[in-house]
């Protein structure tokens, strides 16, 4: 097997300006935040994002001017509210949105993963999503005489960014039993390149104990880096919960340009590495607290 272990800096050089980047993210769940911070540090430009439901990473990438388009089903931080930087950018026409439903996203990525030109869905029929997206969603007849379907055009993102529980140095990636969203279940399969951060790099022998938990084979992965707490401030079950305080800090200032700039300076530009970042966000005290999941207290 081929060596895929590298540094976060090297890994993110695989992302080119203008790329379409598939980003693992739900409202507050499992997002490769260390990789996202590195995108900002490397001042990537004109990226397009593919998300199922984007949360804080989308807001940060919008705030930092890294992205100019988004393909996705929703952007929100659930109980923490809307992503204001993203919202402003869309309202001002700086980010163009191709809004698609979850089944359309599944179909576009599924077609990409299978190298098929399209997959069909009957979700979203009758909505305005189709009207705004004639290049990627076309109503076609069922050749067997049944109801028409929406053909959803194959989408192959240039690169997928993923955070996982463990990986070996050859890019074989495991996920603990938990919700498997399309961002891990299909996005990397459709992408042309895959970059993975993992809570820990382990010996391949460890993976062989639970082959059913391996979600990505090394041969589709291009780079893997070890980043403990790499999903902070999003949750990473069962390791740690989302950081409510951190999310609230962000939403408290996220409408204000200057404060946003200071925030990103502090949490994204200044830390020299993940260990430095973890100190900054509160160190062991906060991490211990998150490991308990606030709902369980």
């Amino acid at each position, binding site marked *: 097997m081929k060596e895929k272990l590298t540094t976060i800096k090297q890994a993110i050089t695989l992302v080119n300006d203008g790329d379409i980047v598939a980003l693992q993210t*739900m*409202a*507050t*769940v499992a997002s490769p935040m260390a990789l996202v911070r590195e995108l900002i540090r490397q001042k990537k430009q004109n990226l397009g994002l593919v998300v199922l*439901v984007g949360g804080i990473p989308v807001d940060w990438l919008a705030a930092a001017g890294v992205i100019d388009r988004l393909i*996705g*089903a*929703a*952007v*929100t931080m*659930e*109980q923490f509210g*809307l992503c204001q930087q*993203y*919202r402003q950018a*869309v*309202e*001002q*026409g700086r980010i*163009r*949105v191709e*809004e*698609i*439903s*979850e*089944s*359309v996203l*599944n179909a576009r*990525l*599924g077609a990409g993963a299978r190298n098929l030109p399209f997959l069909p*869905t*009957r*979700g*979203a*029929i*009758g*909505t*305005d*999503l189709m009207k*705004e997206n004639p290049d990627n969603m076309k109503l076609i007849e069922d050749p067997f005489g049944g*109801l*028409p379907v929406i053909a959803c055009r194959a989408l192959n993102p240039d690169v997928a960014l993923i955070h996982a529980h463990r990986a070996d140095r050859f890019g074989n990636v495991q996920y603990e*039993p*938990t*919700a*498997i*969203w*399309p961002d891990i*279940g*299909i996005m990397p399969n459709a992408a042309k390149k895959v970059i993975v951060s993992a809570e820990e790099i382990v010996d391949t022998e460890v993976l062989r104990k639970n082959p059913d938990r391996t979600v990505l084979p090394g041969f589709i992965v291009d780079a893997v880096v070890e980043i403990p707490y790499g999903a902070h401030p999003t*949750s990473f*079950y*069962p390791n740690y*919960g*989302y950081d*409510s305080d951190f999310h609230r800090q962000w939403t408290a200032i996220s409408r204000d340009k200057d404060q946003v700039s200071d925030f990103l300076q502090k949490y994204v530009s200044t830390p020299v590495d993940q260990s430095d970042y973890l100190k900054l966000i509160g160190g062991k005290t906060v991490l211990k607290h998150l490991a308990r*999941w*606030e*709902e*369980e207290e």
Partner: protein
Amino acid sequence: MSADWQNSPPADEYSIEELIISVLAEQFRNDDQATNGMGSFIPVAAFMLARMTHAPDLIWLAGTVGLEPRPKRIPASTLEAPLWKDSIMYIEQYGDAWHYLFSDRWIEKFCVGAAQLDQFGNANNSVIGADYHAPKVRLPGTAGLADLCSLGKKLYYWNLNHSPKSLVEKVDFISGAGYLDGHDTRDKLGLKNGPQLVVTNLAVMDFHKESKRMQLKSVHPGISVDEVQAATGFELLLPQGTVPETARPTEAQLGMIREDIDPDGMRNK
């Protein structure tokens, strides 16, 4: 299951959220399958209440992920792991969910909120304003709503802010297909079921059988028909005869909501 829930008297004091929860709970039968999305504290409370009372076998797919979970109480997010604690099965969200959720074979009922809902039950969670690419307000987006609306689900909308801004004659953008232009315009696309009920802070509405226009079903205690009409951005159809009053939650239901289901008051957030 509380033994005396069937004979419990209507409560005198309750919050509007608690009323909505009790109305929604009533919609779920023992042989139904239901699921919830993000920010769905009220539907989750309704499912849990139904399961504690008249519908113990109601199948619940928590957050579209966890089958038959046992959360201790409603957690701070309805799309995070604590909600699907102790599930029997995790539904994988690309493949399995396509079979169980994004088809019209299973999981028939869904409760959801919408920024705008129009007289034919079309829902908008996408943009406010005419220019899609430079909207007045960019809303979160359709998420799975566009799918569920078109895939034969029965949809139950809740709305804590009944106003001419949220109940509009025509939505700015159809993120979720209701009855489209009314009458048989939904049927003609082969879309089954659709919006069933709209429960707001003022009233309960359903849809006229023929025209598919929104129709007042009941007004909440203390609210007049005129008040509801004045707060609605289009003319509501009225039922024949007197408009009934929405049933109040019972004391037993309130006890379950406040003590067992949602002691942290997530329903009020």
